[in-house]
């Protein structure tokens, strides 16, 4: 459970940092009149959307941290036998990085208002992500063909579980990405308001993809057993 505790400490630090900027030491009973809080200026809807996504990422982050906790706890038991990791995973990692880079370039294009580059960035990201998912399925099949698709093997059960949950998150993201791409091709995309909405959608997609990449890199290093020493150190600290 050390991973989830670490995650919660990070969340608490974030919350504490945020709270420390919220005048929690104010004496509201002495203050009469209008007080405008810092950050109350500007349009609300982009901030609301980004905050909503941020809150969702916190929930998803907690979900993955718990999965990793469970995984590392099970891994430390004596009967753990690791799986040979299919090489296609390396390829997949590269694809996911490309998708992230493509979305980031789309964000830059959206800020500079270059519709053609937005479209190509979104499309490239979509293609890379689909290829990533296909690659994950390949990895599943490769392991199954090697006889590891067995419910009795905890390593393979965990492998299928974490990759499936990560893949489901990506599928959900692809729905949003598809809608954003459709919007970027819409003929009415030239008005300032429409381009503002598009930019926001592109930014949200990019944030989500960076998050999925980060989660995948952590999962990947765990699956490749690079983090074993780290986990040992954490366990040593706790026991």
């Amino acid at each position, binding site marked *: 459970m050390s991973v989830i505790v670490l995650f919660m400490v990070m*969340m608490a630090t974030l919350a504490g940092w945020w709270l420390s900027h919220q005048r*929690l030491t104010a*004496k509201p009973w002495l*203050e*009469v009149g209008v*007080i405008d809080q810092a950050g109350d200026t500007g349009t609300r809807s982009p901030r*609301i959307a980004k*905050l909503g996504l941020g*809150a969702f990422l916190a929930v998803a982050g907690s*979900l993955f941290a718990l999965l990793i906790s469970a995984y590392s706890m099970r891994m430390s038991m004596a009967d753990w036998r690791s799986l040979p990791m299919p090489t296609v995973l390396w390829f997949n990692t590269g694809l996911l990085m490309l998708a992230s880079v493509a979305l980031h370039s789309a964000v830059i294009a959206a800020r500079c208002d270059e519709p053609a580059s937005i479209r190509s960035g979104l499309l490239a990201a979509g293609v890379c992500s689909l290829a990533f998912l296909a690659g994950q399925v390949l990895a599943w099949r490769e392991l199954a063909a090697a006889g590891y698709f067995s419910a009795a093997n905890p390593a393979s059960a965990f492998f299928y579980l974490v990759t499936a949950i990560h893949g489901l998150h990506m599928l959900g993201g692809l729905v949003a990405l598809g809608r954003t791409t459709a919007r970027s091709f819409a003929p009415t995309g030239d008005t300032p308001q429409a381009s503002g909405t598009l930019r926001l959608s592109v930014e949200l997609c990019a944030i989500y993809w960076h998050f999925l990449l980060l989660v995948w890199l952590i999962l990947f290093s765990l699956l490749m057993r690079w983090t074993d020493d780290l986990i040992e150190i954490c366990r040593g600290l706790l026991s």
Partner: protein
Amino acid sequence: MVDVPSDATVPLSTAEVEDVELYHPRSWVTKYVFSQDAKIIAIQYSLTALAIGLVALVLSWLMRLQLGFPGLVSFIDPERYYQLITMHGMIMVIYLLTALFLGGFGNYLIPLMLGARDMVFPYVNMLSYWIYLLAVLVLVAGFFVPGGTTGAGWTLYPPQAILANTPGQPWGIIVMLVSLILFIIGFTMGGLNYVVTVLQGRTRGMTLMRMPLTIWGIFTATVMALLAFPALFVAAVMMLLDRLIGTSFFMPSIVALGEQLPYRGGSPILFQHLFWFFGHPEVYIVALPAFGIVSDLISTHARKNIFGYRMMVWALVAIGALSFVVWAHHMYVSGMHPSFGFFFATTTLIIAIPTAIKVYNWVLTLWRGDIHFTLPMLFALGFIVTFVNGGLTGLFLGNVVVDVPLSDTMFVVAHFHMVMGVAPILVIFGAIYHWYPKVTGRMLDTTLGKLHFWITFLGAYLIFFPMHYIGLMGVPRRYHEIGDMAFVPASTATLNGFITVVALIVGAAQLIFVFNLAWSLRRGQPAGGNPWRATTLEWQTPETPPAHGNWGKTLPVVYRWAYDYSVPGAAEDFLPQNQPPDPATA
């Protein structure tokens, strides 16, 4: 006057508050059924939660009948008894308390108390309710599938939950896990709404430190729930896989009914960690909204500002943070390392500090207040007493050496029913008596309400005080029938009978409340806009019940905190939050 600009006394326009595009219902169905208005969703959430809560109440009756008069009802065999326990616990904790506090009160009060027109993502909010309803229906479906509901206990510990000889096989556990997964998805949708609305939907002048404590409680609890429910989600998904496709996440090698099962190498302790990583914060997810609501009820009905507002806020946040590092105190008997036990006992006892701060502040708010013994006040007082009682036995159980012998006795049952059963339920009743006039425009009947309060309050004590004693005498929990045991005195059987009789009466008395809700809807005294003469924004709406969009043409502007009661020199004994300062006295 601190930190306030010099022109603060001039009433300000709301032009600087950006208005939101509201959703407009076009037909009866989109207005009252598939509504995106947070108020309608709140009522839907509350009614669903109360309905399923009544089911769980009937289940508890059946359990009590068996415990008080073993064998009286032949229908309750050991299998059914386990099913009753499981469903009673699960429904009460998750489908009633969590849903009612966050989905019900959260939806109704957050936009109104913060001066918003609606939640920030109304469509997602509507989905949240319908997925919750689906979760409830799936749960209820458990009663009708072959084998009935699962009898694994509300904690669903493996390996028992999955084994074939647990009551409710083959379908019960699957239905239960699916329902939980749905509930969590639905709750997450609602929870994101509550958090973002509190952060971004506040009206002009509503700083965080001017929010009523109700909102602070609901907000903190929602943040906790968003971070804690994934643990239950992960546990439920993994257990579902264990059950359905035979993985061994939680299932060790095991021989059941004389047969070696194909599972090997799973860790049941892992499930306990995941479950309680959710399960302990869950206690405070239910308690923090109750803390917040009670603070507002006490302040309003004692006509006095809340004592130590800042401390109250800090304590809420501190309790929320601490509650994530105490989960293993539910697992002292799982064979953990003694230093782990020491660590978790320490954190558990530390939580008593912010909690005690809150209790002191409630009492100090009452001190020399102008206490009106209205129904909400009665229930709030009942809550304080009950919470202190339940909290004190929590200090007993938080210590490893005391917990080990008391674990799995009726003492634990009495403890958690006091602290997270009776106490939050009293707040829910108080809150309904308090806000019903705003929701419907009519008061609930006072005589019926007092009858309801006294039967419930005294009855709860008559039920649960003897239960502590029974537990201390060594009567174990979860037993269908203990029969003759040398170490249990015969008097406990008599007490058990007594408890059952009281429980039947208290349960039946809830019908008074249900009747009152229905009767007052048409026949209740008209309430007017602000019957309690309260300061918070929800009582200042132009219409009662508040219309769609809540605030008419312009949003309110907030000039003061939520607790300006009995301000010296003021004409009235309360100053609404949106009342501009008087230039003459400012």
